[in-house]
């Protein structure tokens, strides 16, 4: 396995960033407290006792939050890798092509308009309808962008960006309108939907996002061969025995499921899906199997690190995580564009 050592390094990096992130915050948790809490959660009875409040902080707040970061980071990054392969363009990410904004609108719609209707009917139905609505609107936005920017199997990058801007604007104004008319004091603010936060993390959301993301990543791995073939163009992928239309639809479904579930829980977080696959391409490979596994690991690392920063920079106050990811992500995006430009002169690194 030629990528084995990279996976190993990323895996170790993920463990380190998770450990660091669990400790840091408005209140620090010591390793001793972590180990004892985990032992207790596993049903053991350690000899030493620890502070109940510290244990609760760790088990009910810090741990689910960090695990949610890993799941969301992995999901958004794998989504970036999938969309870049599908659009055959390395500057695509879920935030650019409407998936995130559409999902946020779908979630906000249920949150604001549907809250009174469904949650009183049944809490289970209410909990299910939120991610479903996010999925439907996320898929709708992505389909609009894809259909309008592709003609005869080729995607025009310029049209895609313009359509993306328009679809994002519509979805964002819809979300803005909804959060403006929301009377419910619990309704999340516009900041939540546009910049995201992990402060609402709890165990049910970890299970939900974790399970969906894991299933979607495993499904995406099964498509990695076909996605590689798609890099040659739809026609040539067809000559290699792949049905491009079927493949595209499956990828869009898997991708939207991942983004929608994450967005409905933590809001829109930009740039992660863009940068992570690119950082992996620095290893000079565009093999989608490598990009998917690598994105899942590196996305987890970066999201955990970004969330940690958002907690400690202004502690005890908390920054929306989107501020951190955009602050770091946008310059990296510019750097990529610069590389792309110089690459064109050299004969098209990204072309």
């Amino acid at each position, binding site marked *: 396995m030629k990528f084995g050592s990279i996976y190993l390094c990323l895996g170790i990096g993920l463990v380190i960033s998770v450990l660091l992130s669990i400790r840091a915050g408005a209140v620090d948790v010591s390793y001793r407290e972590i180990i004892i809490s985990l032992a207790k959660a596993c049903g053991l009875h350690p000899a030493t006792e620890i502070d109940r409040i510290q244990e609760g902080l760790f088990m009910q707040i810090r741990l689910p939050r960090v695990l949610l970061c890993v799941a969301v980071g992995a999901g958004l990054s794998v989504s970036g890798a999938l969309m870049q392969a599908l659009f*055959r363009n*390395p500057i695509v990410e879920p935030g650019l092509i409407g998936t995130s904004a559409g999902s946020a609108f779908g979630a906000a719609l249920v949150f604001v308009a549907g809250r009174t209707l469904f949650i009183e009917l049944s809490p289970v139905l209410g909990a299910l309808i939120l991610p479903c609505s996010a999925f439907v609107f996320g898929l709708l936005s992505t389909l609009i962008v894809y259909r309008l920017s592709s003609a005869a199997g*080729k995607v025009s990058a310029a049209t895609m960006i313009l359509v993306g801007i328009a679809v994002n604007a519509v979805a964002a104004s819809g979300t803005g309108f909804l959060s403006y008319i929301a009377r419910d004091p619990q309704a999340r603010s516009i900041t939540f939907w546009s910049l995201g936060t992990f402060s609402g993390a709890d165990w049910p959301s970890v299970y939900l996002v974790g399970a969906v993301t894991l299933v979607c990543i495993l499904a995406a*791995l*099964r498509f990695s*061969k*076909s996605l*590689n*073939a798609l*890099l*040659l*163009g739809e*026609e*040539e992928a*067809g*000559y*290699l*025995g*792949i*049905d491009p239309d079927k493949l595209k639809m499956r990828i869009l479904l898997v991708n939207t499921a991942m983004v929608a579930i994450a967005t409905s829980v933590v809001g829109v977080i930009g740039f992660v899906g863009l940068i992570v696959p690119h950082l992996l*391409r620095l290893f*000079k*490979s*565009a*093999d989608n199997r490598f990009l998917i596994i690598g994105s899942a690991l590196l996305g987890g690392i970066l999201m955990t690190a970004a969330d940690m920063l958002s907690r400690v920079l202004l502690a005890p106050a908390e920054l929306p995580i989107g501020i951190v990811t955009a602050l770091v992500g946008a310059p990296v995006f510019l750097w990529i564009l610069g590389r792309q430009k110089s690459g064109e002169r050299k*004969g*098209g*690194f*990204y*072309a």
Partner: protein
Amino acid sequence: MNGREGFMLEVQNVSFRIGKRLILDTVSTSFLPGNVSMIIGPNGSGKSTLLKIISNELKRYSGSISYGGKILTAGQHSSLAKRRAVLAQHSELSFPLTVEEVVMMGRYPHFKVQPTAHDQLVVNQVLEELNMTRLRFQNYLTLSGGEKQKTHFARALAQIREVPVEGCRYLLLDEPIASLDLNYQHEFLRMARLLASDNIVVVAVIHDLNLALQYADHIVALHHGKVIADNKPQQVITPSLIDSMYGLKSRILHTDNLPFPILVTNV
């Protein structure tokens, strides 16, 4: 010749329209294994369209295509891919894959998720045969135009490496040498000849009639979507055909020590 006809690639009464325009008009011909067949004709005569219909890329045509007696249907994507490879004029690949990874794509129809040791062996052999082993780990995007096209040729070879239990193999080339230098053009056509001698049906769309005279066993000339000649090269390429297809005066020169004639046009 025994059994060759049984494996042939047959085009029967194929017509194709885009809107009201008739691109192909009841085209019928057949291509035999062991032959290098070439399709010639002016721009817009329907050559590439015909090749796309043969390769199962375009579907809404009338008439039929049959591979070794079996009529092609739309759902044969994956079974056909194991014995039919297509090399396009140029590929739009713009991601940094290594040469080896691109060639391995030719093995995609043969394995499910991960390549087997046999797939790796085939890729190694093909790279060796085309003298490309030194480029193996090089980034595809840093290659020259000729090397890029050769990489795709290697991919096509890897795709149809094994002789199938039933039937034979088919290699379709759509203007494969249009953007290559002289050296590469001859290298590609020599390889095409070599492959044909290995009992593969080789069909190439080509513009250079002198290369067709030199390398083809069989030529189909298309004009306005119709077959206007279908025979051995020296029977097809004549001053009268050149005049009717391109409106150019020409002469065919025979020289003593060349086994094929030379076409000089616009004289």
